[in-house]
């Protein structure tokens, strides 16, 4: 019966007397989105707004359920004057940029390799993904062991290969801890980047390559003149996605170094966590969250710009 009314309504949409039916009809459509919409508003938008709100308040564990006083920009002043914030910001930028650079370049090379035809190609391609899928807690623990100064296998292998002359306390030294954490993150991210780039490579038009080959272009020429320019939009999207995911770094830092030694691996999300959940100063934590949000909004604007540009192409 309901179906009949529906069909009936669709025939009369233009009639003004049936206006309420139009609302009924579109309401019905909105009901599909309603649960997700409510969820997003309550559990996702509200928290983001709350972070901004609380960053202007004096909110600690003691006044959690009572009234909190408005303190203006005091929390921001505290954060910006805290030397740890500057270190965390610097480390986050170094961490993100170097992780992304190596992930994408190594991922690209591997993608080019796996774009060739050979036995068990898909098997190899997929099995590398294990590195990316393993929960970060496990990966972090594992690399802590690999980087161990006395018994770690990385020191041993690097010494065998002549890369280093004596054991390095990778995670225990301010100079090398960030390098070790970045190395770990590169390992995690390579297969993800490879799969994305490989998918883009396989979508490239084959006829252009045919034409180039007929014209007698060398492999290197084909790569620089055809592959790279064609891949540019895809790489840009991978780049921005990478920035967003890498910027969120938390688990590896918590497991591998706890931000140490002496803040050598302190990064913004971990710094925010410590303020909120170790010191229980939610105002300070909220301020860091808002600063991160501002930075990521900038990145996401670029992201949206790129998506739009790609769609218009």
């Amino acid at each position, binding site marked *: 019966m309901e*179906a009949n009314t529906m069909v009936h309504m669709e025939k009369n949409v233009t009639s003004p007397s049936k206006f309420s039916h139009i609302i009924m009809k*579109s309401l019905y*459509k*909105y009901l599909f*989105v309603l649960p*997700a*919409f409510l*969820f*997003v508003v309550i*559990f*996702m*938008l*509200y*928290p*983001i707004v*709350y*972070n901004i709100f609380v960053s202007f308040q004096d909110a600690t564990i003691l006044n*959690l359920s009572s009234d909190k006083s408005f303190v203006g920009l005091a929390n921001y002043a505290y954060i910006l004057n805290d030397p740890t914030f500057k270190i965390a910001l610097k480390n986050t930028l170094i961490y993100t940029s170097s992780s992304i650079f190596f992930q994408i370049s190594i991922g690209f090379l591997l993608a080019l*390799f796996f774009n*060739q035809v*050979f*036995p068990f190609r898909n098997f*190899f391609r*997929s099995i*590398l*993904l*294990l*590195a990316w*899928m*393993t*929960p*970060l*807690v*496990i*990966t972090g*623990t*594992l*690399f802590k*062991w690999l980087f161990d100064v006395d*018994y770690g296998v990385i020191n041993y292998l690097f010494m065998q290969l002549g890369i280093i002359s004596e054991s390095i306390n990778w995670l225990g030294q301010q100079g090398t801890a960030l390098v070790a954490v970045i190395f770990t993150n590169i390992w995690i991210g390579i297969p993800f980047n490879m*799969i*994305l780039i490989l*998918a883009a490579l396989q979508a490239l038009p084959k006829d252009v390559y045919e034409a180039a080959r007929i014209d007698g272009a060398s492999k290197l020429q084909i790569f620089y003149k055809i592959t790279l320019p064609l891949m540019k939009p895809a790489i840009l999207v*991978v780049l921005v*996605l990478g920035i967003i995911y890498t910027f*969120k770094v*938390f688990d590896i830092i*918590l*497991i591998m170094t706890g931000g140490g030694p002496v803040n050598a691996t302190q990064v913004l*999300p*971990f710094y*925010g966590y410590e303020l909120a*959940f170790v010191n229980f100063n*939610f105002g300070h934590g909220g301020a860091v969250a808002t600063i*991160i949000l501002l930075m*990521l909004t900038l990145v*996401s604007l670029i*992201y*949206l710009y790129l*998506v739009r540009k790609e769609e218009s192409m």
Partner: protein
Amino acid sequence: MKKYSKKQYGLFFIALLISIVFLFPIYWMITTSIKPIQDVFATPPLIFPENIQFDAYIKNLIEDRSIFKYIRNSFIIATGTSLLTLILALPAAYALARFRLKGGGVFLLILLVTQMVPGIMMAMPLFIMFSTFNLLNSYLALIIGNTTLALPFAVLIMRPFFLSIPKGLEDAAVIDGCNRFTAFVRIVLPLTKPTLLTVGTFAFLFAWGDLIFALTLATDESIRPLTMGLTTFVGQYGTQWDSLMAVSTIAALPIIIIFIALQKYIVSGITAGAEK
């Protein structure tokens, strides 16, 4: 059987070499877990284990059974996240693809932006919110937390999929006397199985690997998932790497099984996720 050239077999061996080097850490995790502790602390390290023993597994699977509790909790949380994500995302993605909704574009934009907020930043307000409503330390709190990570991803990869299904199919059904809802259930849903699997698996994996919400929203030991259990083992075992690697291997095992069974959907999920 395809015939491969010599060069292709050469490539095969290079691929084998790359995989061995790249997956060496996983190999090291497993071999460390089956070495006696003296061999674990050998200098230089023993690349190939000389004495194999399963003491660490006996210790952590039979003598101490707490890991099963963590695995159980992780399954409840990950399955719950998977289901909640699908329940919320499926109709939303469908409607956003099919209907011209006011504010639909804004909603998609919000999903894009929320995807970029670090989980730890969501955790603080959720912690305060849940503590007010006495929801802390419940599976639901963790499931909701993890769904905030999985939902945007789910909607964003399902919508293009629905766009690719010809609309004529449902219209035909509607004319045949179905309403929109039954058309959705009878015609569209069966076509979406692969996408549902991809999204479900990803939500499951997100939740399985989550540490942030486990760390902040669950102070009660009885509902803590495996990731949190691992940090307890890290604190407990310190540098007893044989036990630690055994626990890690056990924790990674479900991931490996899911991966082997569903790798096709995982690969397609990654690529689809980047398209939008």
